[in-house]
């Protein structure tokens, strides 16, 4: 099976500004891939390049094994940078127009309206829609071609909590049905909830690509001991000063979980009372901030 999304050295420059810088990403079939980054990191430019809206300066990309071009979009659905439709047309007519552009039968229109629960409002003009309904219509348009690959650019932007939950539920359902999803977001909680793997982009560069679990690995061992200064001296001697941090009664050790028993025995053996020894995983936000140098647009 072809890799749904594959880029090598993908770069986009606007004059001297580099929007995307040598990006290598690979989205595997059937997964929900989170494309995470602060605003202005290059997420939307990357997605626009994938869809052929923006021409890469250098680098290559393939969608479902195909070079860029109309044929590469045969089984690709997309919602880029918010929904955009003809305001004077109804939702149904908008979708019929797009079905004609896509070369799919108009019979798909009612099916996708049903999928996004807009059948009851299908005859209303798009201009009268709420933001949540517009987003759902955007998703409906993305589903017209029964896509194998769905590219969604911040699909929950502007939605209320219920709308966000609905949208995430729909994405999960599509993924469960075998659709590969590439989802850009700056909402960490969204990525954490629905993505299998995450690529973190910052200043146009991919700074990490891993599963959510892998991104959250590398936690710290928290130690509460008395007397704490004696414990600090003992642990610095044992592990090295660089691995022992913390202030007050709590020490934080940058070690792996396998060393916990040994550390406990060392402290107890030295007559130091250990009242708490626990593992603390970092949350995705901390990892994100560390990877993106503290640029924080994430919720």
């Amino acid at each position, binding site marked *: 099976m072809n890799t749904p999304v594959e880029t090598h050295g993908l770069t986009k420059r606007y004059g001297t500004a580099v929007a995307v810088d040598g990006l290598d990403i690979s989205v595997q079939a059937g997964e929900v891939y989170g494309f995470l980054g602060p605003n202005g990191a290059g997420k939307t430019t990357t997605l626009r390049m994938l*869809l052929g809206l923006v021409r890469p300066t250098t680098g290559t990309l393939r969608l479902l094994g195909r070079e860029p071009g109309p044929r590469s979009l045969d089984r690709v659905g997309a919602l880029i940078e918010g929904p955009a439709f003809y305001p004077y047309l109804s939702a149904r007519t908008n979708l*019929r127009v797009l079905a004609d*552009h896509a070369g799919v039968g108009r019979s798909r229109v009612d099916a996708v309206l049903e999928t996004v629960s807009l059948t009851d409002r299908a005859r209303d003009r798009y201009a009268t829609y709420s933001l949540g309904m517009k987003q759902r219509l955007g998703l409906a348009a993305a589903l017209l071609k029964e896509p194998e690959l769905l590219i969604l650019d911040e699909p929950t932007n502007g939605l209320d909590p219920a709308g966000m939950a609905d949208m995430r539920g729909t994405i999960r359902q599509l993924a469960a049905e075998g659709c590969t999803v590439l989802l850009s977001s700056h909402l960490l909680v969204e990525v954490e909830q629905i993505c299998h793997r995450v690529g973190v982009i910052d200043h146009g560069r991919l700074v990490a690509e891993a599963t959510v679990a892998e991104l959250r690995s590398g936690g710290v061992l928290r130690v509460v001991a008395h007397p704490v200064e004696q414990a600090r001296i003992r642990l610095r001697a044992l592990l090295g000063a660089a691995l022992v941090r913390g202030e007050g009664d709590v020490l934080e050790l940058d070690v792996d979980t396998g060393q916990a028993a040994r550390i406990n025995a060392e402290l107890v053996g030295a007559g130091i009372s250990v009242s708490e020894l626990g593992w603390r995983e970092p949350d995705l936000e901390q990892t994100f901030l560390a990877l993106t140098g503290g640029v924080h647009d994430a919720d």
Partner: protein
Amino acid sequence: MLTNVRAELVKQARRPAIWLLLVIAVVLTITFGYVIPFVGLNGASGAPGSGRGLASMLPDAVVGSTLAGLPVFVGALALVFGVLVVGSEYGFETWKTVLAQRPSRETVHAAKLVTVAAGTLLGILALFASTAVASAVVASVKDQPMNWPGVPDLLIGASAGWLVTTMWAALGVLLAVWLRAVALPIGLGLVWLLAVQNLLSSVASPSLEWVAQVQKAMPGPNAGALAAALGAPSGTPGVGEIVGGGQGAAVVAGYLVVFGVVSGWLLRRRDIA
């Protein structure tokens, strides 16, 4: 391709602004071609076209009366139509929605040009129908014979009108793609068509020979020459026998091709931001 044309036709046919343009074109054509000259017949004078005389309003002059508005206001409305067909995709930010559905930019561009041509054909037919009715009314009121032009003359007149309006609409398409907007292309297009073009022909051309020569290659004067050759009343703004009708048609067709090719080339090579 056919489904893309159908999509474009639906977009334009359901848009009230497009029909408003058509209504305005009809109203202006009837107003300046029939109402004002008719009032002029009854003694009022001074208004543009008020001195044309009865002959220009009778059925056998219907081709010239229909084409008289092409070099100026009908051309301007055709330009606005072209801008709306393409520029609105920038205004509504719908290029990304359309192109993400798979069609190539070349296909969508071609579908838009076909739609523009269909729209201008409808417009010309509507103008001919309305001027035919108006001339029949004038002939009845003034007890004049109903001598209609022959079918070949009507076909040539309609074709010429279609050519000129499509050329102006194609300029609107080009301006919209170039400026990636709606308002600025309409503004600049109208300034050129209604102001600069008239200043060149009425002020610069009589005093500067090289401007007079350049005029012979410009789209407006050639459209005016084509209209004049087919019977548009002399003295109508923009209408003048600066070149022959054949050359006028050839130059207008040349501009139509150039505007279409350049707008397609620009759309193909530029990013959709």
